């Protein structure tokens, strides 16, 4: 059970990261792309 809880927390983090990266990027990028290289790799 504990395993399941941790696994779903990890899932939530992963989804959260992608949502932040692709949907909230607009606001951030107007100021600065900081060190993430503007999504370039």
């Amino acid at each position: 059970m504990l395993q399941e809880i941790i696994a779903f927390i990890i899932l939530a983090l992963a989804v959260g990261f992608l949502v932040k990266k692709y949907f909230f990027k607009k606001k951030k990028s107007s100021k600065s792309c900081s060190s993430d290289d503007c999504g370039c790799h």
Partner: protein
Amino acid sequence: MINQNINVALIGNPNVGKTSVFNQLTGLNQQVGNYPGITVEKKIGFCKLPNNVKANILDLPGTYSLNASSIDENVVIELLLNKNDKLYPDVALVVTDVENLKRNLLLFTQIKDLEIPTILVINMADRMEHKGISLDIPYLEEQLKTKIALVSSRKGFGIEELKKLIVTYKTISSEPCLNASIIDPEYFESLRKAFPSQLLYKLWLVITQDVNFLNLERKEIHSSFTKSHSDLKRLQQKETIKRYQFINDTLKVGLKVDASIAKDFRSKLDRVLTHKVWGYVIFFLILFVIFQSIFEWSKIPMDFIDSSFASLSTWAKDSLPDGVLTNLISQGIIPGIGGILIFIPQIAFLFLFISILEESGYMSRVVFLMDKIMRKFGLSGKSVVPLISGTACAIPAIMATRNIENWKERLITILVTPFTTCSARLPVYAIIIALVIPDKRVLGILNLQGLTLMLLYLLGFGMAIFSAYALNKVMKIKSKTFFVVEMPNYKLPMFKNVAINVIEKTKAFVYGAGKIILAISIILWFLASYGPGKQFKNAEEIVKAKTESTALTAVELENEVASYKLENSYIGIMGKTIEPVISPLGYDWKIGIAIISSFAAREVFVGTLATIYSVGGSDNDDTIKNKMAAEINPATGEKVFNFASGISLLLFYAFALQCASTLAVTKKETNSWKWPLGQLIFMSGFAYLLALITYQILK
């Protein structure tokens, strides 16, 4: 005061070794970012100076003068004009090349006019003897009203003395070394009267440049002091002549060159490298060596990483307690991380070669060699640099078009650059080539797989050139062509510079793309491990009932159940929905999922398949490659990755624009959605059609 960091700005022409001086001062203690709002690289380093003084060292973009002609150069002026900027320098280091002192001093005199304490750093001093150059330092220091540091960033001498000199910045004169206002005394006098508190040269820069200057309203100046464009340029010419007169007079006494000693290595090398036959042969050979080595040399570390992660996955599965989290780790996270790290060798090699080409000065010769040919296709010789650096990443490549003076040539270059094979395509190519092209040698020495890879790169370049030609015919934009390229001295690339560049870029890949790949791997694992409805829940019973008649071993049954579950999971359902669109290209639904997730970043392709196949099969200790090779299409009974579908996939990835970041940067650089949307529709549509035709012919 002791704890306060001082700001030091490094300013200089391109190709004077400014970045080497920066690296020597800061070592690995640097941060690379962007200036707010624009994608110009901003490098800040930290340096401990004598007497416990700490300094922030800012490496400004290379510029020939303070008359900006690009966004990169604008950054320099905006910083130097804005005293409120938190990076506004306490002291400026103008880095010059001892062999190009005359031209480099032009910028120096302009910086002096801004009344910032300035140190003149004369770099490449180790070559003075060889070139027969001698300098009268005390005389130059007096005339230029500055302190001079003779350094060699290559040999590493003079750096400690430079550090000592920076500490004494408060005693360094901030007086201008010449009076530029004599080019039009009346005009400048009226300016001075109108804005008595402002520095005259600053006013002049604001009038002639297109920069935002915080404290002064541009309009205010303009209404009363407008001059025609032509008049302003005439004044700028006068100003330039004035400055050169001063520099010439100073150097006449301060600099002696014994021409008899100077041996010209450059002209000999130029004769070969820009030769009408040998020049092209050498260029082609260099490209060939790069692509062969990317494939051959990185094979061993890549195979090692691949198999290590496969065994790590098995180990995790066996030693952790059974459960959801263990499965997530062994099937989702470990293959996901492996899918990032496996590309490090190839990406490092690619950046290694690109930075060697740029550091050595060879890139300018390629520009020179290719200009006439490229112009036939509506491009500029300078387009070669974006097209080559596009093999690393289209985003910096598109930004590198900024120094193309002609707008039409620049626009076409931006539009076609994404066709070049970027490093994100490399992993996809690598794995598919390894699967469908035999590992054989042809003509004795050429590796067939390496050759295929090179063909794909050539195809990318070819398509870029061809589209440029078409665009050139279609677009009706008239613009003046200005083309000035500096041909720098040949230099042996410095190990430190190259190494820092490779490390920085590889790190950016691992942290930037890596995070996305990992997040997607985790989400995919969940989508593949859970499904809606009864069919997923009761998978075991359904499969058992189906296969009752055939006697299956326990392992076979387990595999059957796993693949049945996968088909009925969320991802299976999504994949099946889009299958009709992609099956004509020879792909199954699993590849379909991988293609969709590729729109986040192309490299995700391999990681996605790795995750899907890990969930679908019970044997985790196999490598990604072997899993893909073993995959059979149940509909046709053939291998999923066969020659026809493999080639079709290669072509699809070669042409489709699957990169959200490229679209964003095109929008930024062209200031319109029209161009990026056109790129997306044309490139992806073309990729689909070509992959379709190829598969239908080959199958």
